[in-house]
């Protein structure tokens, strides 16, 4: 069986399909451009192909050329999925690309391992909800918020993040998701102002929306720009900045409703 798998030489179409699938998966899991290119070219090389790749925000374009037979070449474009961060996939696929290179894995073995990596379960959403709430509460404590502020932020984050998880389930536009979660979280945290809870209601309000900050896309964008993938970097930067503007709009709206701008 083992030797049978190895003798089965994959066609150029099969390899191109596999490589585009893997690069799209890396892109939507939040890898930066340099890593995608390194991983995919390593895999292509072990199959005996030269690979060129360009990464855009919504699509990936890939060309592979056979090293021995330059007439055998294929270009393919694939739409990427929406960004859904998953660093387990990034590190597993990166390991898979090295294994392909070092152990000369066959096409079928790679395909099996790829499908297994992609179908692995995420951390339970309720655990994530709890940990994010704790995180944002301790964020508030880092900014020297008092006990009332920390408690408020904990519940505000829980409500806001729960709303976000539910809205993601129904595939609502992500700008709307960010605006409404920021609105809900800051509305709850702003209650500290209204009912005069504790001495630091300002800090509660400020840190209530911080769980939404798109940290990974922001860092990825600067990393891309530094490494010379300026177009992708700017696309990511614009994406992250528009999310930040949405957070600001949500915060702004709840402040206007609660009448906090006069403070």
């Amino acid at each position, binding site marked *: 069986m083992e030797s049978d798998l190895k003798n089965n030489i994959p066609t150029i179409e099969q390899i191109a399909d596999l490589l585009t699938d893997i690069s799209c998966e890396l892109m939507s899991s*939040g890898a*930066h451009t*340099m*890593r995608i290119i*390194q991983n995919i070219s390593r895999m292509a090389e072990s199959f005996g192909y030269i690979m060129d790749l360009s990464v855009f925000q919504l699509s990936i374009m890939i060309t592979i050329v056979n090293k021995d037979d330059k007439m055998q070449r294929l270009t393919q474009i694939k739409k990427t999925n929406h960004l859904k*961060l*998953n*660093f*387990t996939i*990034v*590190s597993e696929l*990166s*390991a898979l*690309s*090295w*294994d392909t290179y*070092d*152990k000369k894995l066959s096409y079928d073995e790679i395909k099996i391992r790829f499908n297994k990596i992609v179908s692995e379960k*995420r*951390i339970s959403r309720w*655990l*994530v909800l709890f*940990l*994010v*709430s*704790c*995180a*944002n509460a*301790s*964020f508030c*404590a*880092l*900014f020297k918020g008092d006990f009332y502020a920390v408690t408020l932020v904990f519940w505000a984050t829980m409500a806001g993040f729960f709303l976000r998880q539910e809205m993601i389930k129904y595939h609502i536009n992500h700008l709307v998701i960010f605006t409404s979660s920021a609105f809900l979280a800051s509305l709850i945290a702003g209650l500290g102002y209204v009912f005069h809870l504790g001495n630091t209601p300002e*800090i509660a*309000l*400020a*840190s209530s*929306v*911080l*769980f939404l*900050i798109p*940290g*990974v896309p*922001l*860092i990825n964008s*600067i*990393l891309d720009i*530094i*490494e010379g993938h300026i177009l992708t970097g700017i696309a990511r930067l614009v994406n992250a900045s528009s999310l*930040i503007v949405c957070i*600001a709009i949500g*915060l*702004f709206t709840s*402040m206007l409703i609660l009448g906090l*701008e006069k403070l």
Partner: protein
Amino acid sequence: MNTEMIKLILIDGLLAAIAAIGFAVISNPSRKAIYVSAFLAAIGHGLRFFLLKMGFEISLATFVAASFIGLLSIFFARLIHCPAEVFSFPSLLPMIPGLFAYRTILSLIKFMQNTDIQKSQSFIIDFFHNGMTTIFILLALVVGVSLPVLFFPKISFSVTRKY
């Protein structure tokens, strides 16, 4: 450097570690990576806290702390065979300048709603002061953490290689 100071730094690091765990699980890393990012966040934020107490400017202190996290993360990446950014990104998040960003927006709102020129001028100053601080801290974070990756590209791209 007295015991009071050390206690403050430890509390600061502990809070940063909790924050890093929470922000790490959003991006679904492996369990080992979560522990490492909590540890790195505690060290990085504690270091920044110490530097701020020593009288460093905030964006410079952030830069030093972020590059320290970047260096350590390459070491840990080799140790647990996992790309460095998996745990260096979440460990930076506790240093995101949230309060400055909030004050930027607040002063912008106040500027829009105010008609008095004298007050408007002070709001504009607030806006630029807080906005610039936010941007510079963000840049310091990212450039600081990616400096080691730029200096050692071979190492940082081959950490998941096992042979």
